[in-house]
Structures are given as structure tokens and as C-alpha cells.
């Protein structure tokens, strides 16, 4: 098995080299590429930092500082994606007053690449969310909410493929069950579809059909539950071909990302960085393009 994998990997890598001018064949020395993924979740309209008197997060967070951090990382590695796992709205008067306008405008200013939809993003109804979409220059990704017959119809995409330095990165969005969390008056005719089945469809498209090098799930399912409810950890176990799940909803502060074995016994990284923008998550993925690559497994430093 390992041997077959080795042959396959080697030959595929060689094929790319073979596609370049022939005198280069096998002549290339080490070539590696790095993709940086930055992520937030459950920012909940926390545009300003917490006050110095705050009992839990004194002086933490703030969009203006976050952008300084992001810009420094982009300077270090221009091949960076910036993602958010939902619940952008609700939590400070900025949302009550402006309905999410400033949240979306600032995310656009920070050049977020994509986000998914959390339950609180329905707090002004599916119409209120749709009304703010012109302020979002980033992609709103949602693969398991069917917005047919709602104002959000056509304003989301199930997935997006980003190409950074020739590396294909497929990102798809997964939302939580709305029943019990979002009143039907707000979600209107939004239909929630099974996250596991939809994720299987998404990974088939992104990995098998589109040959993405990296597949990322932006999830608002929640990290994990004591009772039987689909979560990031269970989704990771039940699926394959997802490299990274960036989670939200449960406001989980993880000391480090969790590594979960997927259905094909391959490592999946599950991460979440608390809430309110007090942390920015960073995960770097290094790729080897060397035709003589011998690596049969990746190393993970967390």
C-alpha cells in the first residue's frame, strides 16, 4: 500500500516536471511552496477591543490590530488566505445600529477571502443578511443551506477554489442545523441539508474532480458535543479528503489544533480560536514539488 502510494506520488510529481521544457526533465532541484491560512470565528461584532476593565479579555481583540497582524504575515508570505467560520454578527451595538454593515465593510477592507454563515448571521433575518451582502467583497460559502426562495438565493457559493502560487485550494462552507437556534420567521424558507452528505459531495468535487491540493472546510457546526450532534470532530471522522476544518459556534479556545483520523485513516486538522477576535489562527501548509520527492507522509508541528 505504502509502496503504491509512493509510486503514485512520485510519478504524478514527475509528470508536472515533464510538462515543463524537456531539458528540465529531472534536472530540477528542491522546490517547495508554502500556503498560509489565517482564520477567525465568532467575532460577533467585536470591532473595538475589550475594555481594560473587562473581566475575561482585558485589552484583547480589535479589528484595527488584527489588520496590522494580517498585513505583517502577508508581507512574509503573500500566498495567504484569510477565512472566517461565521457568527460575524450580533454582540455589540455596532450590529444593533448598522445591521452588520460595518462588520462586512471591515472584513472587505482586511481582504478576507471567504467566510461561512453562522446562526447569528440570521439575527436580522435572511433578508437582513442579504441586505448586507453588497458590503462583502469576500465569498460567502455555504454548501448545506438551500436558499432557494429566499433573499440569499444566488448570493452564496457552495465552494470556491483559490490558486496561490500554483497551489489549488478548495474551500467549502458548512452551517449548523437552524431548528431551535434560528426562528423560522428569520430563516424563512432556508433549508438545512445534512452536513456529512454534503461534505462528501464537496470533497468529491474538490479533490477528485478539481484536483485541489488542499481542501478546507469552513464550519459553523461547533467543535464537539457530549450528546449525539454533528460537530467538527465527528465530521472529520466521517469524511475523507478534508485537510483542515476551521470551526466556530462553540467559542472553543483550543490550546492547539486537534488532529483527527478521517474515514481513510488520514490526519485531519480541526481548529477554532475562541471568539470576539481575541485570537487569529495561523496554519502553514508546505508543499514539495520536487520530482524526486520521497516523502510518503507529512509532518505536523503544532
Amino acid at each position, binding site marked *: 500500500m505504502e509502496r503504491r502510494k509512493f509510486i503514485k506520488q512520485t510519478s*504524478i510529481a514527475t509528470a508536472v516536471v515533464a510538462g515543463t521544457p524537456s531539458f528540465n526533465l529531472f534536472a530540477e532541484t528542491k522546490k517547495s511552496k508554502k500556503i498560509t491560512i489565517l482564520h477567525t470565528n465568532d467575532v460577533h461584532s467585536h470591532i473595538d477591543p475589550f475594555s481594560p476593565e473587562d473581566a475575561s479579555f482585558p485589552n484583547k*481583540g480589535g479589528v484595527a490590530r488584527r489588520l*496590522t497582524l494580517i498585513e505583517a504575515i502577508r508581507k512574509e508570505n503573500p500566498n495567504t488566505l484569510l477565512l472566517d467560520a461565521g457568527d460575524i454578527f450580533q454582540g455589540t451595538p455596532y450590529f444593533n445600529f448598522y445591521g452588520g454593515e460595518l462588520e462586512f465593510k*471591515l472584513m472587505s477592507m482586511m481582504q478576507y477571502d471567504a467566510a461561512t454563515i453562522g446562526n447569528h448571521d440570521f439575527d436580522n433575518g435572511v433578508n437582513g443578511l442579504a441586505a448586507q451582502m453588497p458590503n462583502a467583497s469576500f465569498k460567502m460559502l455555504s454548501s448545506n443551506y438551500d436558499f432557494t426562495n429566499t433573499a440569499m438565493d444566488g448570493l452564496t457559493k457552495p465552494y470556491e477554489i483559490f490558486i496561490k502560487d500554483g*497551489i489549488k485550494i478548495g474551500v467549502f462552507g458548512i452551517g449548523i442545523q437552524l431548528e431551535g437556534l434560528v426562528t423560522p420567521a428569520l430563516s424563512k424558507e432556508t433549508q438545512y441539508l445534512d452536513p456529512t452528505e454534503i461534505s462528501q459531495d464537496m470533497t468529491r468535487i474538490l479533490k477528485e474532480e478539481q484536483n485541489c491540493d488542499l481542501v478546507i472546510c469552513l464550519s459553523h457546526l461547533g467543535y464537539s458535543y457530549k450528546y449525539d450532534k454533528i460537530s467538527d470532530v465527528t465530521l472529520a471522522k466521517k469524511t475523507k479528503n478534508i485537510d483542515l476544518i476551521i470551526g466556530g459556534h462553540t467559542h472553543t479556545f483550543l490550546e492547539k489544533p486537534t488532529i483527527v483520523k478521517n474515514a481513510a485513516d488520514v490526519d485531519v486538522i480541526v*481548529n477554532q480560536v475562541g471568539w470576539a477576535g481575541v485570537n487569529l489562527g495561523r496554519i502553514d501548509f508546505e508543499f514539495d514539488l520536487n520530482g524526486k520527492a520521497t516523502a510518503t507522509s507529512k509532518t*505536523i508541528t503544532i
Partner: protein
Amino acid sequence: MIRIFLSLVLTISLLGCKDSQATLTHIESHQLPVTDSIQANQDVLDYIAPYRKRIDEEMSAVLAYAPQSLSKKEGPYNTAIGNMMADAVFKLSNPVFKKRTGKNIDAVLLNHGGIRSTLNAGDVTMRSAFDIMPFENSVVVVELTSDQVNEMFDYLKSGTAHPISNMQLVLDEKNEIKTATINGNSVENSKTYFIATNDYLQQGGDHMTFLSEPLSMEVLDYKIRSILVDYFKEQDTIAPVRDNRFIKE
């Protein structure tokens, strides 16, 4: 081995459709705390400023005055701040409900957990209303059967100071219901009752299941926070008291 290798190369070269193929070799993660040691981006600060200014102006608007702080922790059974909220809902929702339906609200039930902060002594501002009620929940009036109303009183026996108005519940030493009245009268089997609450509780919040299947329901589109703001504006001084609407003998 070499033959297999070459034929694979050939096959893939012929297919030649891979946009890119790279081998993932290394993953590394770091969590970056956003602290005050990071310089704030000035463009962002400038962009936020007018939005913040308008909020600060509106939030600091003084609506009334509170001689004493009011905390929901002064219970059990009933609290001054909870009584104020339930009475405000009763007073301000009823004209809206009556205008629409020609009927009167019989009583109000809210939830203790829905009081999100203390009302501090001093100026009562718009920010006070947002602090007490940051959520967008609105008033709904449900028409309940006498059985459902009795279920409501049973639910309240736990002693949690859920805010109520225009009803009274007296528990005996064993925490059983001694008297339960709405508008001063015992619950009549043949009657139905119009209870004002919020949409969160009506939809199963705090497991108030007796609100889930009402005979009829009127959604008032009147937010609880707006009720508080309107109530504060009407009053000069905010000084509600604990009383005997829910007590244990």
C-alpha cells in the same frame, strides 16, 4: 518496477490535465493573540470613528434616573428589575394588542435569564437598555387554555424569579401552589388567557413548553429593548420594588 513507473508517467503525461500536483509535506500551526502590544491600523480606526461616534452619542442619551442599582440577583421569586420589565411589557404592549385584536392582555411572563445585566444607579441611558436586553427578541401574545395556564404555574413553582405581571403566585411551605391568580381571579376552566411573552420563550426557550402550542398567537413586532427604552422615556425616576406578586409563605 521501472516499467510500471514509466508507463504511469506516460499515462499521466498523455492525460496531461493536472493543473498542479504538489505533495503536502509539512503543516505548522500558531495561535496569535490580538493584544495591545500590536499597533492598531490607522485606516481602520479612521473608518470606524464615525460609526462609533454615532453609537456613543445615542448610547449616552439619558432617558431616566435610577436612585438605586437594580440586580436580578436579589430574588428568589421576584426582583425589582424583573417586575419593572414585566410591568413595562404589560403597560406598553397592551394598547398595541388591543388596537389589533380588540382584546386585552391578561398577564405577562418573561424569563429570569433574559435580564442580561444590572441597572446601575445614576443616569439610565440608551446603553443601559442595550446592556439589559442586547437581543432582538420581540413580544408575542399567546392565547392559552386554562390547562396550559396551570402548567405555567406549575413550571414557576421552581422558585426562579421569572418576571411576571398582572398575575400572582403564592407557594406554601412545601413549594406547592397555595393561590394562583390572573388579574386577581383564579384560573377558570372555560376561559382562555392572553399571555404576553417573548418569541424566544414561545419557541421553546427555557423549556417553557406550555407556550409552544397556543390556541392563537399575535406577533407584536415590538422588541423588548424598545419597550424598555420607551418605558424609561416615560418615567422620570426608575425605582421599581420587590412585591408580593410571587412569594413563598
